[in-house]
């Protein structure tokens, strides 16, 4: 069975090109993809994960507003009992020049993400995801 991934761009962010590239890259790697597209809110992601019984939630953000949207993730994750779902976020995760780049990854991990990629090449991110899935199963 192919692993299922829900993906999309969080918040008022309309960077569609990266979103489409993530979609086709995941498909090329054999994932079943549910792409919610740009301009997606956190609640919509969680609904889609529940509805599709997804294995992975991959949120992307390009304009850096993800932080404002993802603070509630821990809470939602507990409420819907999604502890087996892999939560991943990538893209440009801070608005403007971040004061301290080393703090970005731990900060997002504290919000409940298993995998965090700030300004990392898409294929490196997806290679890491596949490794992570391999270790889990």
């Amino acid at each position: 069975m192919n692993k299922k991934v829900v993906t999309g761009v969080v918040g008022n962010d309309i960077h569609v090109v990266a979103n489409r590239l993530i979609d086709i890259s995941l498909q090329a790697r054999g994932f079943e993809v549910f792409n919610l597209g740009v301009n997606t809110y956190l609640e919509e992601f969680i609904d889609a994960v529940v509805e599709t019984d997804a294995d992975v939630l991959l949120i992307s953000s390009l304009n850096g507003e993800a932080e404002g949207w993802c603070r509630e993730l821990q809470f939602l994750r507990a409420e819907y009992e999604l502890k087996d779902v892999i939560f991943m976020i990538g893209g440009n995760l801070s608005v403007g020049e971040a004061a301290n780049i080393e703090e970005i990854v731990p900060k997002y991990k504290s919000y409940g993400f298993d995998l965090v990629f700030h300004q990392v090449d898409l294929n490196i991110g997806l290679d890491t995801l596949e490794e992570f899935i391999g270790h889990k199963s």
Partner: protein
Amino acid sequence: MSLHQKERDIIVQNQYIDNFDFDEVEDFIKNASKDLFISHKFKNSNTTLVQPRGGFPTYQKQFELYEEFEKADIDVMPLTIDSHTRLNDYGSAKKMLMLSEENETDMLNGYPLVNHGYATTRKMITHFNRPVSLRHGTPDARLLIETALASGIFEIEGGPITYLLPYSKNFPLDKAFLYWKYVERVCANYSGLNEPINRESFGPLTATLVPPCVTIVIQLLEMLLSLEEGVKSFSVSFSQTGSVNQDAVMANVIREMADFYAKKIGVEDATINLVYHQWMGAFPRNKEFSDSLINTSSFIASLVRADKIIIKTRDEAFGIPTMQCNAQSVANTKYTFQMLKGLPTITDEEEEANLTEEIHSIMEAVFNDSADTLWRKVFNSIKNGIIDVPFSPHIINHNAVVTIRDEHSNIRVIERGNMPISDKCLAYEKSKVKLSKDKTAVINKIIEDIGVMHE
């Protein structure tokens, strides 16, 4: 009173505008200077007209921008509308306009035309007495277009498909068709009073590897939807593909197809113009390279005998250009055009035949849809993926068509999705590209192809 006029009366009852006097507006258009009509300028010009982009929040700054453009002997002035107005949020536009006036910093990315109103804006337009083109991106542009026409702006860009699929995730497409139908009717009704109002479609779409057949089909359909309502002057457009040969092929085919399909619906008295957009993808950050890209675009516009070119500036990668930079770009393009007269035409029979066949196949599928009106047929065709725009953010778009560049940078279809092009045409497209068997390598190539103009 007709239903259409009733709708007009309702549209102009809006707390953000003053009284709208339709009789006075009709009188103004009837007696307006011919120089304000781009349709008149097209008729009396044998060179490619030059038009930049540009819109500032305050009347004062917009006036100064036009003064700079006038010094560069501009052919067509732009009026770019701010993003709040595009979403019909006149309240926010008003607040940001006030802040811009008080602080001398621009709090809007364009001119909030509805808030300024037609009485004020008309003073500026008639003062400069050159054709003005309205650039926006609005799905419901009814009030905006009433205000523009009343101001003396006699070219309206946009359309239900081209202003929706590249810009919106979930504005209902069927509503967009009906709102644009209103716009076409208003433009058509004013077209009998003086010179015709020109409508222009927005061919660049997402400007991301859109295959020529998709661009041209959408241009033709917006043209037909407009002519159907009685518009008599229409511009089809496309943007630089990245391949000079493909641009030439597109120009030849779109001209021929526009005539063919206009006649097919029984319209023989409309003027169809061709507009060429300089590169609409991501620009290089090196300004000297930008200059080179812009000059090459201008050359292509001359080569394909475009009736108008819409230009960029060397600051494109860095945001909204200064007035001086923008005006300099107008002057440069006009300078370049002086040495590009009487170029031989390029034709490529094999490529043109293939593109023409693809277009006819898609158009036939649209016309064969069982719906009773053209806009419903087009709506259904987008919904079921017969028309599919690569990299559209809209939820209705299928995203099944995949394209890539061949070794000469031509955009080629490698996955057709539900787009009804024949096996033969698809085989022709695919024969031009050597695809890697490794899917990830193909995707990396697509990423490179999108950013083809980066240094």
